[in-house]
């Protein structure tokens, strides 16, 4: 294959006490694609993307971005490298405002002396950008960008998290079950957003238990089982039944499925 993967991982191992969450897992993400990751509860999907995004440090294994080995020691470093992640537990600070949350860790400083030497923040600029991003994505009708996140409904919070990722992810966007708690309407909006982002050329990793959603948007499906990548399938070549059978161990992989 001619195209180089933008992100690869080989032989990732992560142990939590007695549990091995990742057991020599591999991973590949190609430019511009939507890669879905599916698997049973506890298969290690979240652990995998946490390892990739610097939220946990794998015990073994190697991660490469655009061919170069990388070793993120914190989510901030992954973020600086252009990887934005929406974690399963959202990762928003309840008491901070929407704007503060969107810019946490990458605040805009005031121009000139105040910003440079007194490190003053430019609240106005951040609010403007946050508002623009949110309405650009058409995701919600929030009146007050300075509202604390804790005053938002679950769906609105999810929206803020996804909007943050979409706004700042320059290389890769990772979404871990972004629609699990969402209603029908809200889920649909997130799926539309995912298509939107992909059309801007940014590859997306989507973890989901919702097969119809996965088969609707994914270019390739990474099937995770018992802490490792079982195989990668092309949704055009396989049925949902096949995917579910593979992921739950009802069927075993006969031949190495070729990445699409």
């Amino acid at each position, binding site marked *: 294959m001619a195209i180089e993967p933008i992100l690869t991982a080989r032989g990732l191992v992560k*142990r*939590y*006490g*007695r*549990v*091995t969450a990742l*057991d020599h897992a591999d991973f590949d993400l190609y430019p511009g694609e939507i890669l879905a990751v599916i698997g*049973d509860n*506890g*298969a*290690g999907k979240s652990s995998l993307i946490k390892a990739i995004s610097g939220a946990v440090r794998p015990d073994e294994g190697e991660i490469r971005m655009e061919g170069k080995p990388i070793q993120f020691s914190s989510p901030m470093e992954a973020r600086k490298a252009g990887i934005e992640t929406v974690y399963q537990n959202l990762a928003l600070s309840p008491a901070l405002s929407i704007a503060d949350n969107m810019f946490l860790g990458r605040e805009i400083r005031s121009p000139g002396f105040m910003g440079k030497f007194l490190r003053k923040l430019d609240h106005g600029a951040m609010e403007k950008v946050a508002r623009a991003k949110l309405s650009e994505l058409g995701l919600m009708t929030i009146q007050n960008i300075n509202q604390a996140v804790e005053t938002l409904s679950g769906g609105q919070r999810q929206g803020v998290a996804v909007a943050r990722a979409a706004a700042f992810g320059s290389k890769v966007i990772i979404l871990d079950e972004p629609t699990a708690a969402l209603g029908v309407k809200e889920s649909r909006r997130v799926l539309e957003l995912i298509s939107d982002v992909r059309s801007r050329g940014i590859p997306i990793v989507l973890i989901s238990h919702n*097969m*119809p959603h996965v088969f609707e948007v994914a270019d390739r499906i990474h099937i995770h*089982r*018992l*802490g490792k990548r079982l195989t990668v399938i092309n949704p055009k070549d396989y*049925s*949902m*039944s096949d*995917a*579910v*059978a593979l992921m*739950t*161990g*009802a*069927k075993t992989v006969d031949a190495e499925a070729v990445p699409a």
Partner: protein
Amino acid sequence: MSEPTAAAPHHDYEKVLKDSATEVASFDRDDKSAVQRFRQFLHSSPSAVSLIVLVASLIVFGILLGGKFFNAFSLTLILQQVAITGIVGAAQTLVIITAGIDLSVGAIMVLSSVVMGQLVFRYGLPVEIAIPCGFAVGALCGFLNGFLIARMKLPPFIVTLGMWQIVLASNFLYSANETIRAQEIETTAPLLQLLGHNFRLGGAVFTYGVIAMVLLVALLWYVLNQTAWGRHLYAVGDDPEAAELSGVNVKRMLVSVYVLSGLICALAGWASIGRNGSVSPTIGQFANIESITAVVIGGISLFGGRGSILGMVFGALIVGVFSFGLRMLGTDVQWTYLLIGVLIIVAVAVDQWIRKAAG
């Protein structure tokens, strides 16, 4: 109403599930080293660490001091010295298991003992009435704590910080700073000194205060582990909302635990009359810090829901052995404080290490 029909899965893909595998994605590694197995043993028995430290410190001081330290009399003397801390520590343990903290224990203890004494000597009440009144005062203070914490949902740290000052000030105002002498108590109301009486078994000397501490801890151990109330206490400390939704009356539990804490503090106040002989409004100034120290060294989590009351006793004994041993060695008292400080930090660090590793 429609008859229930055996519903068929809407999605075709769900039909394949009948063949799905049944393993679970968790692996027990077999290659456990001795260290790991030891860690897991410690993890499963939370008071083992403090017991080991206690035995180790007994051995170290035994070697350093020889027979002077390692005899029945000295060892039971340490027991006598920690009895009051042990009693107060039991109250503190209950509160800390609910993820609370009680800074007012020492104040409640001294106020209760002062009330017991003053009722006899100022108002001439019979001692058989004065002692229950002291317990009632302890229970009342505990109830106030519990009411503010459970009903008004105020943080325990702040409520008991406020109560500490209020109760202590009341104590001084009420007692007018008067000490009641041991000899007067002995003639008029010897029952007040009951817990100070002792008996001998060979070289060993046990006071009733020590017995009271041991019985109290045994009783609470039983209650915590063998009754529904005990299970509920852990559940409340673990996650109060979950406990409430699971059918535990969290408010009533919290109120009852602070009332019980107040009662136990009153017991400690009574025991302190026995130990000191006299009734003095200046005792118990460090009871809150000492009891928290015992709890912490005993491996009981300040976040609630975890820990054994036996650990608290071992914690109190460790501090007692250190203080006694270091004084026998003739070190400056400040070194004792310094070492206890180090011990506190080491104890939680070890605890954290065990927990992290055993997962």
